[in-house]
């Protein structure tokens, strides 16, 4: 516990000063883009333009932005169904994201994957995974491959607090340490699984950090709503991995503003708790910090306006796109483009 607190505190203070103005503005821009895009996604649901399910990361933008900015373009992202933000920060177009949510021909996968499976290999965004925990092992494999191929790529794998109790978490962490793989595991602890609080079903207080020692790793527990902290922690972990230091396991404490998924109003959460965390909203908090650091409000307002404009444009573009041709439903099972199981 002491180790954890020390670590957090260290991450919180010391390296903040080192972040330059441009990077800070980029971090802010990314968070704002995520926020506006997902708010739009939420509106499109209410208009029934998005079917099926969808899981928003509203409130958790600092984790996505902090890592997205710290990662190199060739680093790999693996994330969950709650992956819109992680996809956006890798440079994927808003139109393709919204298009996939709407399930039409403008989507990243033309509607074949849906909101839970956003993937853009071109951006080294290697997929959003909808079975809790599975991608931790897959990220380890990508890291293994990177090292085998002699690149300096790092795989970053995001998952929720709930994922720390499933078997793959344990298997992936152990293998990654034994093989000393360049992979960074990032637990976004938003305190809830679907409707059940993580503390009700977990043997330890910090579901990821308190497990680090089971793999010989340093416990790293950070404020996941402070984008500077996330960014500097990310840089350190990426750097360690790149230099052959093996994996890290980071627990970032955060909160989702809304419910688990489209259908969920999130009413199972105590009002006080929600209020407390809304007050820790990473975006206004960072905005204030930037103002405090002397960045003029106009710059921020123009970032915000620009983000809103992009979201509006993407919305229009995605809405205008025609439905996907039904034939694609029967394509691309195999590498030859087809789906034949017989001759």
């Amino acid at each position, binding site marked *: 516990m002491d180790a954890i607190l020390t670590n957090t505190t260290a991450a919180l203070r010391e390296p903040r000063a080192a972040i330059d103005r441009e990077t800070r503005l980029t971090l802010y821009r990314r968070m704002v883009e995520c926020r506006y895009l997902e708010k739009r996604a939420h509106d499109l649901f209410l208009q029934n333009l998005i*079917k*099926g*399910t969808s899981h928003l990361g509203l409130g958790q933008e600092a984790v996505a932005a902090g890592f997205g900015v710290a990662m190199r373009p060739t680093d790999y992202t693996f994330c969950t169904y709650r992956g819109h933000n992680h996809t956006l920060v890798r440079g994927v177009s808003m139109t393709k994201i919204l298009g996939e949510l709407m*399930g*039409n021909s403008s*989507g990243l996968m*033309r*509607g*074949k*994957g*849906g*909101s*839970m*499976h956003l993937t853009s290999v071109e951006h080294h965004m290697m997929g959003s995974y*909808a*079975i*809790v*925990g*599975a991608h931790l092992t897959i990220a380890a494999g990508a890291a293994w491959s990177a090292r085998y191929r002699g690149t300096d790529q790092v795989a970053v794998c995001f998952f929720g607090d*709930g*994922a720390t*109790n*499933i*078997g*793959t978490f344990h298997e992936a962490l152990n293998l990654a340490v034994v093989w000393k793989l360049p992979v960074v595991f990032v637990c976004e602890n938003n305190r809830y*699984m*679907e*409707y*059940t609080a993580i503390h*009700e*079903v*977990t043997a330890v207080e910090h579901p990821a950090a308190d497990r680090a020692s089971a793999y010989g790793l340093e416990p790293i527990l950070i404020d996941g709503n402070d984008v500077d902290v996330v960014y500097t922690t990310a840089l350190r972990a990426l750097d360690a991995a790149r230099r052959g230091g093996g994996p890290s396991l980071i627990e970032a404490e955060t909160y989702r503003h809304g419910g688990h998924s489209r259908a969920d109003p999130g009413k*199972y959460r105590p009002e006080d708790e929600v209020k407390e965390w809304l007050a820790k909203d990473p975006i206004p908090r960072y905005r204030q910090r930037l103002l405090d650091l002397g960045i003029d409000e106009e710059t921020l307002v123009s970032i915000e306006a620009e983000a809103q404009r992009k979201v509006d444009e993407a919305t229009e573009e995605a809405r205008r796109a025609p*439905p*996907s041709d*039904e034939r*694609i*439903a*029967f394509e691309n*099972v195999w590498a030859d483009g087809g*789906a034949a*199981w017989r001759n």
Partner: protein
Amino acid sequence: MAELTYREAVAAGIAQEMRRDPNVVLIGEDVARAGGVFKATVGLLDEFGPERVRDTPISEQAILGAAMGAAMTGLRPIAEIMFSDFFAVCWDIVANEIAKTRYMTDGQVTLPLVIRSGNGGGSRFGAQHSQSVENWAMAVPGLKVVAPAYPADVKGLLAAAVRDEDPVLFFEQKSLYATKGEVPDGEHVVPLGKANVLRRGDDVTIAALALMVPRAMQAAEILEKEHGIRATVVDVRSLVPLDTQTILEEVAHTGRLVTVEENPRLCGWGAEIASIVAEELFWDLDGPIVRITTPHVPLAAADNLEDAQIPSVDKIVARVRELVD
């Protein structure tokens, strides 16, 4: 008779059995406080309390392992696997442990347990949350397998599953949860292993399961009204035990069999039935056995794509017409 939704019938069936037998318990992710992510267990925590209705961590192997350990030592657990796709993360406990332990111990261990799971497509959840995996279970000796289409059967078959001394996998079709139907008041039990002949005709027998049953029924009406083809529709309901007697009788009468399966083509339950009919009823057949299935591809998320994949009423009508004309 009361009109219940399919999801209400789940809770009604569980409640009926929990009232009857204090050893019936329910575990799963979000089944207690939240009443289930499909709201199929609403009210049970309130009625039966936190010792009998328990939320679990996201640990499907531990959920089913716990259910098995409890069943072998005197309880009658009902475990929920939220989406049947997640059977893949705990298949060992199902296929290697639960299915085989009675046999391997030469009957020493009895496992009266039920595993309920949301199964099937139509909800635009994409390839990993929409599968019909009842054939995974059917392929493993030692598991009973049930998949109801109507609220009355949900309640009645669930009750029978809980009372059964053997492990039963109970597949609830997710896009049927909101559908309604009459359900008998009071104690209601529908025995496992009995198919239900929903209508009779002379031209063709259509065997269907779960979501495909109402579609087959609609198709049968269209076939009769618009094309003068009179179809028998058999709701298979129970894959293990399988009511081959009813199926064989009905096919013997019409001379033709069409199966309608939501699962992807290869090794579906329809193949098994087709092979039984092709062996045992060959000389009574008037024509080829036809299987209508989702093609052998994963399911897409977008609505128009998914609708193009899962057998529709139109597809059933068209295919039956080809066969019979």
